[in-house]
């Protein structure tokens, strides 16, 4: 590290990128899938039918259901259906029950108000949770993924310093030149979506900053409770009086909110102490209505008289900054086109990480092009590259296959889907250890191509909601999933074909690529 500043930064970029790249790849891929969390869940639970949205009727049905099934609960939560979520979800907290904090949830049909017996599946929620919890016990997964986000931000900044001629390099793409093409691709994608990358990695720090950087809160407030009360403008829950009182009809309160905020879509509705004379109803505006989270966008009513008690407090500039980053990260506000753009940017981020990992190895492999086998540490990187990229794709495919093939009545069905995901991932690691590098890549990608391309067929055979039905019915969430799976399969097939067909290029092209790698060394300084 006696070299210049740029060389030191290139070194840092290279090594943090290698160590965290595998995990970052998984975080980015599952995070990208999470932009279609509701659509994936819709595919995973095709039993829940979508209907024309009618919030007033749905709210009445939810209240009816909760009154007859959860009359003694200490609180109710209702999530209204929206354009992306077909189910009318109700949750309640039983004061006597233990386990999972006594929460029960049910998905109701938005038209009949009857509970839907959907197959047990975590659907898009699994990828969303994995994205920031990594299936690790609380709070370790969140800590680790936030550290990864910080390393991503560091990787971006050191990457910018390394490639300071960023715009010149952006217009240079030399395809078909091995290592050089990988670097050009890495830079072009990296620069093209740089604003998104900077936003997404910084905002992930903002989402969990109270957790990973608590010193400021502790010094100022003593604990996080007071900080959150100030930040979200929360009240303590009202004390139960023990006097029973009939609840005001929720559709009437909904109408009152509509006069206060015309056209506002409601996200969830919380009812505290239902059936008690101290009952309180809070309506919170749907996250999709604003870019930033709004603490002001909620209305609290007396649950018996229906009188408006208070509206959320307005946000300060600092709050709007933090809430905007949170909102931009989640992308709840995005309509279909912007959502696809988010998805494309997410894929681009995943590709930047993937190409970086491939390049790290490619550059070092060249030096051993003539020897029969790689040195141990390079072979380790190769195996981890294969397992973390094509292996993860196989895991995702296995999750969806398990969703369609596991019997609906199976005990712990949702957990088996998750097990299928990890099992496929683990098997692909073993496969990568046993097979030579290029063959392992090719075979796993080919299997992935088949697994994804056949998903629409599997869906059609097992649910009768295949592409012919879903397109005709205008169910674009279902059709979009199938078409995306098909597209993914075709893309993976194309890559697998290249991997399996190409003659060993390393030996043949050694002189040319060696020269190219000299340039790379010049640029990257490592």
């Amino acid at each position, binding site marked *: *590290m*006696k070299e210049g*500043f740029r060389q*030191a*930064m290139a*070194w*840092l970029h290279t*090594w943090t990128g290698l160590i965290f790249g595998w995990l970052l790849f998984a975080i980015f891929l599952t995070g990208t899938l999470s932009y279609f969390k509701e659509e994936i869940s819709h595919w995973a639970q095709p039993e829940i039918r979508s209907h024309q949205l009618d919030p007033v009727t749905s709210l009445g049905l939810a209240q009816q259901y909760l009154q007859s099934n959860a009359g003694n609960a200490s609180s109710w939560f209702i999530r209204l259906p929206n354009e992306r979520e077909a189910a009318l979800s109700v949750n309640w907290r039983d004061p006597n029950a233990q386990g999972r904090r006594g929460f029960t949830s049910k998905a109701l049909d938005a038209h009949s108000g009857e509970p839907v017996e959907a197959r047990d599946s975590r659907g898009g929620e699994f990828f969303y949770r994995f994205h920031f919890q990594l299936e690790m016990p609380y709070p370790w997964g969140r800590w680790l993924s936030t550290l990864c986000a*910080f390393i991503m*931000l*560091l990787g971006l*900044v*050191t990457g910018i310093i390394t490639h300071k001629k960023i715009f010149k390099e952006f217009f240079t793409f030399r395809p078909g030149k091995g290592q050089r093409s990988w670097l050009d691709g890495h830079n072009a994608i990296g620069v093209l979506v740089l604003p998104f990358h900077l936003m997404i990695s*910084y905002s992930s*720090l*903002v989402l969990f*900053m*109270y957790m990973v*950087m608590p*010193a*400021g*809160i502790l*010094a*100022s*407030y003593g604990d996080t409770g007071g*900080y959150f009360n*100030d*930040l979200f403008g929360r009240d303590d829950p009202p004390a139960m009086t023990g006097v029973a009182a009939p609840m005001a009809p929720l559709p009437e309160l909904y109408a009152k909110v509509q006069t206060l905020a015309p056209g506002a879509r409601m996200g969830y509705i919380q009812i505290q102490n239902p059936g008690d004379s101290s009952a309180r109803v809070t309506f919170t505006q749907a996250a999709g209505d604003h870019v930033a989270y709004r603490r002001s966008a909620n209305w609290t009513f007396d649950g018996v008289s229906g009188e408006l008690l208070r509206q959320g407090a307005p946000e*300060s*500039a*600092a*709050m709007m*900054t*933090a809430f905007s980053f949170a909102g931009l990260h989640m992308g709840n506000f995005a309509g279909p086109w912007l959502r696809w753009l988010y998805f494309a940017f997410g894929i681009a981020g995943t590709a930047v990480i993937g190409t970086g990992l491939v390049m790290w190895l490619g550059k*070092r492999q060249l*030096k051993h092009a003539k020897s029969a086998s790689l040195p141990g*540490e*390079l072979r380790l990187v190769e195996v981890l590259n294969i397992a973390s990229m094509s292996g993860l794709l196989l895991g995702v495919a296995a999750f969806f296959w398990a969703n369609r093939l596991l019997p609906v009545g199976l005990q712990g069905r949702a957990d088996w889907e998750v097990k299928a995901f990890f099992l496929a991932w683990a098997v692909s690691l073993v496969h990568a250890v046993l097979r030579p590098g290029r063959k392992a890549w090719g075979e796993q990608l080919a299997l992935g191509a088949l697994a994804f391309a056949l998903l629409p067929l599997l869906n059609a055979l097992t649910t009768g909601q295949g592409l012919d039905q879903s397109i005709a019915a205008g169910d674009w969430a279902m059709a979009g999933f199938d078409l995306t799976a098909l597209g993914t399969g075709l893309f993976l097939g194309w890559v697998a074909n290249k991997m399996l067909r190409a003659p060993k290029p390393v030996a043949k092209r050694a002189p040319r690529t060696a020269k190219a790698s000299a340039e790379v060394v010049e640029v990257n300084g*490592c």
Partner: protein
Amino acid sequence: MKSKAAGLPLSYRLAVTSRSLAALLGGYVLASMTSVCIALLAPMAQVDAALTGLLSSFVFYLLAFIWCFACRSAWRAWLGVLLPSLLLGMINGLAYWMKNP
């Protein structure tokens, strides 16, 4: 650099480890101290000051990280993160004591 690992002396590896720890741990202490300093001293509402401290702490973490790998030796890396942390720590201690006597 590490691909030539066989030829690298132990002292180099120790220096890299030391720099990494300085960046990861020392940088975290520095970032925390900055966030406390802003949370306690910024002339804003309590929640806004705390929030601003948190939001900006990561910038300081980032700068500390870069410093630890850009400076000339591992010793300088530690010095560069610990000295400002110590200074901020003293200011924070004073500010905390003034608010909670």
